[in-house]
């Protein structure tokens, strides 16, 4: 037991949880906690320029490290600025602890300066939250916050601490365990269900492993690989699952969904067995749900029972930690193998490979402009074979091209906003990823629209010595919206034109103390990107690309996945 203030207790709790870095911005109602930082803590505080940036940094940190991300903000506007990041973490199951200051207890409910009911506002988008009422609650609440954020299905929690409680004295003792009678995430998958799942896999002729981000959250990538290799199962990774399985592996067959290649979507939709591993049948993956994979038996493996049957009925559900569930399925398949069973998937693997040869990703290099795909392909070529590159992205066309053309060999190397689709996620997430992986080259493939939503965090990258490389795939448009207006609204472009040249991105970068580059020709793209990647400081590359390039293939919203629209030009080059 040690006598201290509530504010110190918060920091001692962070230290006890092994937090090495957190992200935030101080303000009136959280002054005592920031004073505790000033009085000394082993936790590094990274000062963001906007609380949304701090939130996405904490997310990027969590996604790159596998640890819980921590974001801090003051009451009122500080807390509400965190809301987008909390919602993002909720949708993508990113473990996050947000600590917000609150007005003094006696002022709560009086519309005091910078008062805001942040626990109320965030109820639909947190796993749990606390408005701390007494200083003695702090150790228990902090322990519970970290425990809930990282157990079961990961996600965000919020701890709101009134200023007078930060200033109150406490005999601090951090608990080793916390009793939460209402929080009991599943510990093991049911053995009978696991046997059923293994039996279904053993007998399948056209199976697909449909792998989502839960595989990484469940630390189950090695077990996944063992399963795929043992039974020769094709692996298709979602946007959130990208990197869960090595993309150069012969059993990796692309990415599903709205902008996934035809071969991946055909494999999913023509399969006889769909094994969903930590994935959730999102509409961007399935297209028209009633037409999705009509002939497939569904095995659904997930830590969250509520995902089972939420959208697609599961024939064989297994609820449990994926690491154990996958390992047990592998053991059971080995047993079946000893009894004489063997994989029967070779013709199916050849079939998917044939589709891949027949319908590759294509685009045309014709025309006056540098192509966005070329930019991403060049980035891939420049970093191929390196195991120290972490990618982040914004949301939109550039994100889809990043999915299509970047090859991720390792878990936690592709960090993107999937569920919420948060434009502006990429740059701050890159700063957070860099804090988690100082050894890595962290590259944000961004859009010009996205970049302008959070570019103030360049200051954070520069001043906190967290150098990142931002490659703006600058088409001068809110590109994905432009694409939908082009394809589904007779090309009536409405409020989507941002222009290539305002702002002058390289000058903006220089103004922030970063290196600025501009490139607009295919001849120079490689040398410019190489210089940016190797300059050793925060760099922004303004890659001015074809303003009207569209992202293909595409499943129109609400259409069946088999009705894809492909790139049609004759002189397309293959990727």
């Amino acid at each position, binding site marked *: 037991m040690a006598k201290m203030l509530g504010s110190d207790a918060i920091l001692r709790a962070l230290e006890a949880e092994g937090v090495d870095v957190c992200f935030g911005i101080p303000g009136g109602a959280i002054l005592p906690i920031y004073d505790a930082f000033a009085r000394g803590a082993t936790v590094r505080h990274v000062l963001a320029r906007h609380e949304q940036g701090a939130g996405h940094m904490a997310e990027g940190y969590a996604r790159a490290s596998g640890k819980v991300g921590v974001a801090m903000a003051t009451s009122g506007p500080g807390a509400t600025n965190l809301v987008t990041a909390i919602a993002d973490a909720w949708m993508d199951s990113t473990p996050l602890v947000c600590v917000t200051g609150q007005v003094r207890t006696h002022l709560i409910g009086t519309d005091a300066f910078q008062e805001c009911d942040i626990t*109320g506002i965030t109820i639909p988008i947190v796993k*749990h939250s606390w408005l701390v009422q007494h200083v003695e609650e702090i150790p228990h609440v902090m322990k519970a916050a970290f425990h*809930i954020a990282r157990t079961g299905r990961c996600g965000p929690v919020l701890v709101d601490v009134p200023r007078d409680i930060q200033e109150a004295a406490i005999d601090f003792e951090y608990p080793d365990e916390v009793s939460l*009678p*209402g929080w009991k995430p*599943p510990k093991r998958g049911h053995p009978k269900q696991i046997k059923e799942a293994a039996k279904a896999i053993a007998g399948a002729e056209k199976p697909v492993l449909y792998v989502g981000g839960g595989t990484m959250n469940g630390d189950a990538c090695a077990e996944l690989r063992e399963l795929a290799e043992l039974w020769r199962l094709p692996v298709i990774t979602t946007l959130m699952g990208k990197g869960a399985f090595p993309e150069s592996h012969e059993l990796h067959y692309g990415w599903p969904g709205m902008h996934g290649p035809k071969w991946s979507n055909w494999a999913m939709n023509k399969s006889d067995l769909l094994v969903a591993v930590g994935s959730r049948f999102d509409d961007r993956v399935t297209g028209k749900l009633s037409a999705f994979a009509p002939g497939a038996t569904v095995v659904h493996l997930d830590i*969250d*029972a*509520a995902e*089972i049957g939420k959208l697609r009925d599961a024939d064989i559900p297994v609820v449990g930690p994926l690491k154990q569930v996958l390992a047990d399925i592998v053991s059971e398949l080995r047993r079946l193998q000893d009894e004489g069973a063997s994989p029967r998937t070779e013709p199916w693997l050849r079939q998917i490979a044939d589709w891949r040869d027949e319908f590759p990703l294509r685009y045309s290099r014709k025309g006056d402009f540098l192509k966005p795909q070329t930019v991403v392909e060049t980035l891939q070529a420049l970093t191929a074979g390196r195991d120290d590159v972490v990618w982040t992205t914004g949301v939109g066309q550039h994100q889809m091209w990043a999915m299509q053309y970047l090859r991720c060999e390792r878990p936690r190397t592709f960090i993107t906003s999937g569920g919420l689709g948060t434009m502006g996620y990429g740059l701050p997430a890159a700063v957070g990823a860099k804090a988690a992986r100082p050894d890595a080259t962290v590259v944000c493939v961004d859009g010009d629209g996205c970049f302008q939503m959070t570019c103030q965090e360049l200051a954070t990258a520069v001043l906190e010595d967290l150098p990142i490389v931002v490659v703006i795939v600058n088409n001068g448009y809110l590109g994905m919206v432009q694409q939908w207006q082009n394809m589904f609204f007779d090309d009536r472009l409405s409020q989507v034109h941002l222009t290539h040249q305002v702002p002058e991105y390289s000058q903006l970068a220089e103004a922030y103390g970063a290196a600025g580059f501009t490139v607009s020709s295919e001849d120079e793209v490689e040398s410019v990107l190489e210089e940016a990647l190797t300059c050793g400081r925060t760099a922004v590359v303004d890659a001015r690309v074809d303003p009207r390039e569209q992202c293909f293939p595409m499943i129109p919203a609400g259409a069946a996945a088999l009705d894809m629209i492909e790139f049609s030009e004759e002189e397309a080059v293959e990727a």
Partner: protein
Amino acid sequence: MRHTISVHVENKPGALMRVSSMFARRGFNIESLAVGPTERPDVSRITMRVDCEQHSLEQIEKQMHKLVNVLRVTELEPGESVERELALIKVAALPEKRAELMALADVFHARVADLGADAMIFEVVGTPEDIDSFEELVRPHGVKELVRTGRVGLSRASIRRDASRRQHVLR
């Protein structure tokens, strides 16, 4: 189809809000909701009436289980549970009508909770269906005001329930 769900929650600030917010957010409609203390001071019980398909009911149960304050979710099945509701009904009752109303009330074991010059308040406890019937019968006399608690329920003492039976199969 209508279902009655009984939810044990920790008696903590915001627990009810978390449950009701989940319903709103997931698009489930609550017909009635009653909340109050239980035999344990640290536990409250929420009884909810919802109108939904079996598939949605399973989603509701599973989504509720994910809430940290929720301890147990059970469905109270008709025939295997006792369900009661209380209503207060203020009915126009001029002196010459009182006897007729009292006779009606007698059939439903309704009590007169208050009596005024031209109106009276009945207090009736029963199954929600009984209360519906009583309400129908007094309505022609002129119902001035009416309030119902929403149903509360317990599984029958006379039926040995396997405690885990209504817990979802996946848990």
